[in-house]
């Protein structure tokens, strides 16, 4: 397998594949963080998670079009604006969905799964009606294109570095929110014991709605970040959903650290395998391994020790 490559070539291969693995890792982390909050903390299966990401991507596309009309200097900084807009729009839709659908189904998780799948179909068709069936891409400011040359054989693209930066920033933000803010404390309290949380004066319904909205908002930001590395079509969201759920479940549903660790493991395995096998076989092998491990160890990598 390795015979035909020299040692330095191998080192470069591993470095390059490792780096593309890191970009994949960031993508997985971004996808999975929102879901880790919604599924991991609330136990709600949101099959429309991919569509919330695509919503963020379309919002970014609209913002970039709007900024295209403005002076050139402003166009360079449209991205942060687009990300905030994506967070707010996806979060608002999330709050509405929680109010209209999810809150009536908390005691029936399998039905939530079907209802949110229906929602995802409706959103897909909505995107197709509004934006057309073709994929759309955003125009990037010049400073975000090109790549950095690290050595003769190793080059890294700038947009990849940006996606990684965003993933790190959002992970830290979510970690701080969950473990330092009073909202995070309330969320964790409600998850651990809903009745007692209500008894000590936490508005559990409001907490649920906010949690769901924040999870969806993060999905929107993730979608916004994805526009830097690929184009967006109405049904792109469905491609992500299996990967995302596997990342969250593999990490141990209630653990943010577990989510990040599992995103790292899966992405690295997949991108290194991709070099030696065809892309589809790399994916099949990775997913099969993950499913196999999950069958043997259903609680995932990092299980919370809870007495139920």
């Amino acid at each position, binding site marked *: 397998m390795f015979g035909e490559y020299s040692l330095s070539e191998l080192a470069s291969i591993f470095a390059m594949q490792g780096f593309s693995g890191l970009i994949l890792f960031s993508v997985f982390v971004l996808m999975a963080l929102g879901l880790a909050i919604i599924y991991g903390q609330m*136990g709600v*299966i949101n099959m429309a998670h991919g569509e919330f990401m695509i919503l963020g991507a379309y919002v970014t596309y609209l913002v970039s079009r709007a900024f295209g009309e403005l002076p050139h200097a402003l166009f360079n900084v449209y991205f942060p604006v687009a990300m905030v807009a994506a967070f707010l729009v996806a979060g608002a839709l999330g709050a509405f969905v929680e109010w209209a*659908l999810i809150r*009536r*189904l908390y*005691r*029936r*998780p*399998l*039905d*939530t*799964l*079907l*209802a949110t*799948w*229906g*929602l*995802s*179909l*409706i959103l*897909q*068709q909505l995107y*197709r*009606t509004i934006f057309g069936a073709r994929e759309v891409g955003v125009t990037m400011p010049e400073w975000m294109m090109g790549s950095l040359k690290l050595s003769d054989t190793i080059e890294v693209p700038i947009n990849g570095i940006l996606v990684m930066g965003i993933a790190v920033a959002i992970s830290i933000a979510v970690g701080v929110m969950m473990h330092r803010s009073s909202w995070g404390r309330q969320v964790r309290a409600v998850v651990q014991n809903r009745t007692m949380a209500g008894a000590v004066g936490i508005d559990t319904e409001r907490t649920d709605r906010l949690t769901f909205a924040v999870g969806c908002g993060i999905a929107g930001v993730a979608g916004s970040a994805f526009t830097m590395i690929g184009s967006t079509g109405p049904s792109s969201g*469905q491609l992500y*959903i*299996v990967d995302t*759920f*596997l990342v969250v*479940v593999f990490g141990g*549903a209630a653990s943010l650290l577990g989510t990040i660790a599992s995103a790292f493991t899966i992405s690295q395995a997949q991108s290194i395998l991709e070099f030696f096998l*065809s*892309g*589809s*076989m790399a*994916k*099949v092998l990775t*997913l*099969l391994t*993950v*499913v196999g491990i*999950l*069958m*043997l160890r*259903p609680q995932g990598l990092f299980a919370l020790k809870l007495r139920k």
Partner: protein
Amino acid sequence: MRLSFSASDPGLRRQIIGLALLAALLLVALPLGLDAFRLNLFGKYLCFAFVAIGLVLCWGMGGILSLGQGVFFGLGGYAMAMYLKLEASTPEATKIQSTPGIPDFMDWNQLKALPLWWEPFHSLPFTLIAIIALPVAFAFIIGTAMFRRRVGGVYFAIITQAIAAIATILIIGQQGYTGGVNGITDLRTLHGWDIRPDSARVTLYFVCAGLLLLAAVLALFVQRSKLGRILIAMRDQEDRVRFSGYDVAAFKTFVFCLGAVFASVGGAMFTLQVGFMSPTIVGIVPSIEMVIFCAVGGRLSVIGAVYGALLVNLARTSFSESFPELWLFGLGALFIAVVMAFPSGLAGVWVERIEPLLARLLRRKTTTPADPNAPEAPEPAPLTRDAAGRRPGAATLNALSTNPLPATPMTDAAARAAL
């Protein structure tokens, strides 16, 4: 297994009448009313009804939601398609290929010889056994691994969905061995009998309908047996059943395997009637749509599930012929409506709304004429109601299970146990 048969059991009478009406619809009304093309289309829908019946047992009764039924459908379908393809690829028929005697897609992908695991599919008996044995073996492995570790509910749904995704990627990626995204096409004969002409399609339709009725009888038998009661008890209070000394995992694995066999038989019939098998019927999207067939019909009603599969597929065909834009909106709304407003599906609507309404109407008719002192009007028999001129399709939905759906569906107990 003890059966609670008794002549006066209203649930049993209802199921037998429902089954008879279904048989009349499938074996008499549809063949008389439709041309060969439309009949073939209905035959295709019936294949999905196999899956829906399996889901009634797994999901409605057992609380195990599998989002990977398409994989089992595909196992049966591909096994049948491989046999048919080998029969179609005789050395004479494929002599223009660079390697005659192997399926055409293998030749296009530069394969020089038939892969070893294709060889047994030269034999029809092996293929027929494989259609039953492969899904059982596969479902047994998955079921044992998961249910022994007390995993169920949402978690099980996610894992089975991942398996469906893996199967699709694998089939598409290995196109030299599987035909890739186009699937296995250009199938001609079954053991020397041409399956393509209209007469063969009509015969196949009857075989399919017959097998489906057989599956329905089997499912009703399971539902009425003690096994069915244990399944429902497990769904609602798993721990209590376990503490009573039952092997919960074994029951769950059994019903999951049974559902898998139903799906696989449906897949094999699909291949025979449609003439191809492709990964588009295996993946995530078709698998979850199979769940909606079951949910629309009524997740507890075996016979309702058949109507659910027929109606949703019929709606899809007619919608996507005339308003392709609207179909996804409609399907999405259907998912949400069936969960929010009609958790027990068409069968529930029939039993809760239409049946009492009919009973009231009939009672008024029979009591108003002359005799005000007539004794309480008897429960009207469904057959007389059907004579009142309703669609035979709607009339049979009353074949509900003996256990009407409680107000809050009970899937949550199993799901909570998973997390």
